[in-house]
């Protein structure tokens, strides 16, 4: 029996008069790729932002490994092992690829201001240790030729990969990916899909995936949840969801196929 890693219970989020999320519940179990799909403006991003702590939900709770984390700030959640990647281009442009990934290890490292200033033996060792871990991710994501390149000089697809690498640096217990494939070409999508599957299989990290590309979603996810107008309209294995009439009508109605 798989353990539940993250569960959101009847989340609701309102901005003034606007209700972005009306009632969404979600459970993610170990070793699962759990996809979240829905037409534009269905509330996917708002929901994700509730999960990672940017927005505090108006009601409902988020539990992570059995603990209620609804009120925690994003950095506390990161320390607990919740990692996420972002829509668009959100890497640190003036850092190199390696530094970007290394920055993901922030909460596992211990050295403080004084250590940083003096850079004595212990700090150097700590740094070296984590560079080694960062290099593991670099190898995993096949970024070796670029490790010392500034991220600002790289193309969009590669930046997304670095965003992913940085999230892996958190040594996450769950990984949230917000539209990782938007704006990618077919080849880049294929690469990323392979990495996502490898992350699940080799590192056993459960993944919440918000994605537009239905084909990829259906290919790689274990569970699919469809939301529309801030509510869950269907959920289950890809095959079941695909044939759900509510999903079909939502997608046709929303004008997105």
């Amino acid at each position, binding site marked *: 029996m798989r353990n539940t890693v993250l569960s959101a219970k009847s989340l609701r989020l309102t*901005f003034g008069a606007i209700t972005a999320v009306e009632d969404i519940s979600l459970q993610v179990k170990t070793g699962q790729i759990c996809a979240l799909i829905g037409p534009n403006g269905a509330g996917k991003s708002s929901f994700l932002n509730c999960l990672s702590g*940017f927005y505090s939900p108006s009601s409902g709770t988020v539990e992570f490994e059995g603990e209620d984390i609804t009120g925690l700030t994003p950095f506390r959640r990161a320390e607990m092992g919740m990692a996420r990647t972002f829509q*668009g281009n959100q890497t640190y442009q003036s850092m190199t690829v390696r530094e970007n990934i290394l920055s993901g290890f922030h909460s596992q490292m211990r050295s403080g201001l004084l250590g940083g200033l003096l850079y004595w033996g212990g700090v150097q060792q700590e740094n070296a240790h984590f560079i080694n871990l960062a290099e593991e991710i670099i190898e995993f994501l096949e970024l070796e030729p670029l490790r010392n390149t500034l991220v600002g000089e790289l193309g969009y697809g590669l930046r997304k990969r670095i965003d992913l690498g940085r999230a892996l640096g958190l040594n996450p217990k769950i990984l949230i990916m*917000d539209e990782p494939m938007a704006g990618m070409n077919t080849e880049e999508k294929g690469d990323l899909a392979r990495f996502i599957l490898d992350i699940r299989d080799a590192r056993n990290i459960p993944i919440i995936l918000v994605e537009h590309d239905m084909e990829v979603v259906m290919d790689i996810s274990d569970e699919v949840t469809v939301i529309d107008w801030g509510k869950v309209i269907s959920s289950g294995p890809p095959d079941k969801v695909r044939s759900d009439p509510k999903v079909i009508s939502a997608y046709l109605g929303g004008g997105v196929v």
Partner: protein
Amino acid sequence: MIELVQSLSSGVLLGLLYGIVALSFVVIYRASRVVNLAQGEVVMVGAFLAWMAASSFGLPLYLAIPAALAMSACFGVIIERFVFRPLTGQPIFAVVMASIGLIILLRGATMVIWGPATRPFPQVFPLGAIEIGPILLNTALLIGGVITIICAAGLNWFFMRTDAGLRLAAVAEDHTTALSMGISVKKSAIIAWVLGTTLATVSAIIMLSGSVLGVTAAEIGFRALPVALLGGMESVRGAVIAGVLVGMAEALASTYLDPLTNGALSQIFPFILIILVLLIRPQGLFGWKIIERI
């Protein structure tokens, strides 16, 4: 009680002076997203231009003031064209740094052109005070206050009701959207700067009428910046209301607290007040709340 009312009403008038300088921050910010830290220096240059028109050229006041306003409008165009336009597209940070460069440049230029000596500023508004009951109001500041309110109302109308003003607001919201709507970002920036520098000159005249002019005039900039931030950088109304609030707070502090603290608190009090307010409302009193999207 009378003391309280007296200090409050002087505070309001001082606050309105802050308000009009803050307004000059706001108009520039609204159209070009530039927080011009050199706004104090712009006020100073405006003051020198007015002085030059009145004293050097010897023009009568009714000609000198329009001449000064015209010159400061040109001055605004020059700044926009040669400093901020080339920086379009750079990060906001660079733009702010440019305004720091402008501080240094304008101070230097003023001292080279007009010299470091202080000089009397022409008496534009009648000297003295108006008595309303037991309360005395500085005439110049009172007239200035009225002008501030008129300007604020005018600007409010301009921004809310006229095409050009709405366009400025659109540019402020989002450059790319503005471009796609076919709004000339360039033109908007010029309008903003012309308005900003002219307002600064008006405020200089109100502030300095019958007083002494020197490079210290620029200090008003960093006194008014907090006011603009408190009001919310985008808000015309906010600038005036925040000005009044800060003015009143400062007056109250100077009347009641300064005797206790040896006179220090009234100058610091506005800052403390503003920081306290910002802690509660980070976007200022009337600023637009930005929801961060990621």
